[in-house]
């Protein structure tokens, strides 16, 4: 029992360090990648190819002055970045990166856990908007709550056919099912499309990044934050991207399972599949416009939710006829 506890603690520590490292280099990938999409070079002055840029950024952020706005609600103002940061970090715990032991918490409700925890991070964003005592953060926070009402249903509805098909909420079981029967992106392509679009909203990435919309809202919900509190939000935001991409890779692309009968290497295959989604989101980010939040809600309720529901019924019929493999 003690040994189990110790092992989980070590795994959690490793995961947290890995996620923070991934965050540091996702900023590099993001800046270099976006730069290439815009025919620029991106940061290349610190170290070879600018690879030490995240370290320089971190040092700069630490030495920045930490500002508390006069009108801010002190307690919530401090709490909001912690909430956003903690839940963003915790969400990854249920995603398996390899066979049996390679997951921090092998939960039977793994899918629900990841959803629940990453949605809780929205409280961080909303409280930040509320506690800043300033109009732009408030608007950003309200938008993110409004978006939550929109995409969350579609997200849940898109995941139901997957769960029906595999008969489990455990992510390890879902990966095992895909190992046996082929990737769910082939079985559940409409669900994947709906899930991907809703997921863009969940990660608050283009075209649904209106919560921080720098052209209209200065910096949205974190306008009044500086120094490490700002960095906490930044980490939370990018960790959503990281976790969301890993979850999509797990649900629809077979997770850590090796494709085409290649040898099993625990972290490698999930990483490569994860990279596909990271690139896809970055690509969309560089290409598309930003929707208004009412347009997004109309789209989520009017297109995504009905589409997901119809596909859910089709899958349910298929499973009920004994098609579940």
């Amino acid at each position, binding site marked *: 029992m003690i040994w189990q506890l110790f092992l989980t603690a070590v795994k959690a520590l490793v995961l947290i360090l890995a996620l923070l490292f991934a965050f540091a280099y996702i900023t590099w990938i993001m800046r270099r990648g976006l730069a*290439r999409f815009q*025919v620029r070079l991106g940061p290349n002055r610190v170290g070879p190819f600018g690879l030490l840029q995240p370290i320089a950024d971190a040092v700069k952020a630490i030495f920045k002055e930490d500002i508390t706005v006069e009108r801010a609600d002190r307690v919530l103002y401090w709490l909001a970045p912690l909430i956003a940061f903690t839940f963003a970090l915790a969400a990854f715990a249920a995603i398996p990166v390899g066979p049996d032991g390679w997951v921090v918490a092998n939960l039977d409700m793994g899918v629900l856990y990841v959803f629940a925890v990453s949605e809780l991070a929205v409280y961080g964003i909303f409280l930040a908007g509320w506690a800043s005592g300033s109009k732009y953060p408030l608007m950003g926070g309200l938008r993110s709550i409004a978006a939550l009402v929109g995409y969350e249903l579609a997200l849940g509805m898109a995941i139901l056919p997957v769960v029906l098909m595999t008969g489990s909420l455990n992510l390890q079981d879902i990966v095992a099912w895909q190992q046996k029967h082929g990737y769910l992106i082939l079985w559940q392509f409409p669900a994947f499309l709906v899930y991907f679009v809703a997921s863009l909203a969940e990660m608050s990435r283009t075209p649904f990044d209106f919560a921080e919309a720098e052209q209209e809202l200065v910096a949205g919900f974190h306008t009044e934050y500086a120094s490490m509190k700002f960095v906490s939000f930044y980490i939370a935001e990018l960790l959503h991207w990281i976790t969301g991409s890993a979850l999509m890779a797990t649900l629809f692309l077979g997770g850590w399972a090796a494709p085409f009968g290649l040898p099993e290497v625990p972290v490698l295959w999930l990483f490569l599949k994860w990279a596909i989604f990271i690139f896809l989101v970055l690509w969309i980010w560089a290409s598309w416009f930003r929707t208004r939040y009412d347009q997004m809600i109309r789209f989520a309720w009017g297109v995504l939710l009905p589409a997901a529901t119809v596909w859910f019924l089709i899958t349910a019929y298929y499973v009920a006829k004994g098609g579940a493999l």
Partner: protein
Amino acid sequence: MSVMALAKALGITLRHFFSRPVTVPYPDAPVAIKPRFHGRHVLTRHPDSGLEKCIGCSLCAAACPAYAIYVEPAENDPENPVSIGERYAKVYEINMLRCIFCGNCEEACPTGAIVLGNEFELADYRYADFVYTKEDLLLDAVGSRPQRREAARTGKPVKLGFEVPYVRPELEGVKYE
């Protein structure tokens, strides 16, 4: 908004992703400058005699909208003339902080003595160092004042951060390399 338009947008950005970045990594690689770029001024000389073209008439100072130029003329010694006319510029100063690089001085000059060159790397530390005198402006001086100071300190030749396809004829005798 159609799905085709969205796909087209993705195609365009992907094409750009695989094209060469247009960024010039400036201090490492030279900037390509157009021949008519308005840069630091040069006081030119007559190519064969080597005499200065400037006759100290102060028309450039009069034309200058920023009052950046100061000229103090003196009579030429007929035995050993500095310029070809009766007079020459004993003192010729341009304040590079005031100068707006408009080129009016070049247009006003009756002898084509003051010409805007192509150098632009003028950054320095003290206000006083931005007042360029004759020795900084005559075409023998390659590089700006801080660049030449740096070259004298390290013993290396002046390194210019740009290249021009050809030096325009008004700048006859100026070498950028």
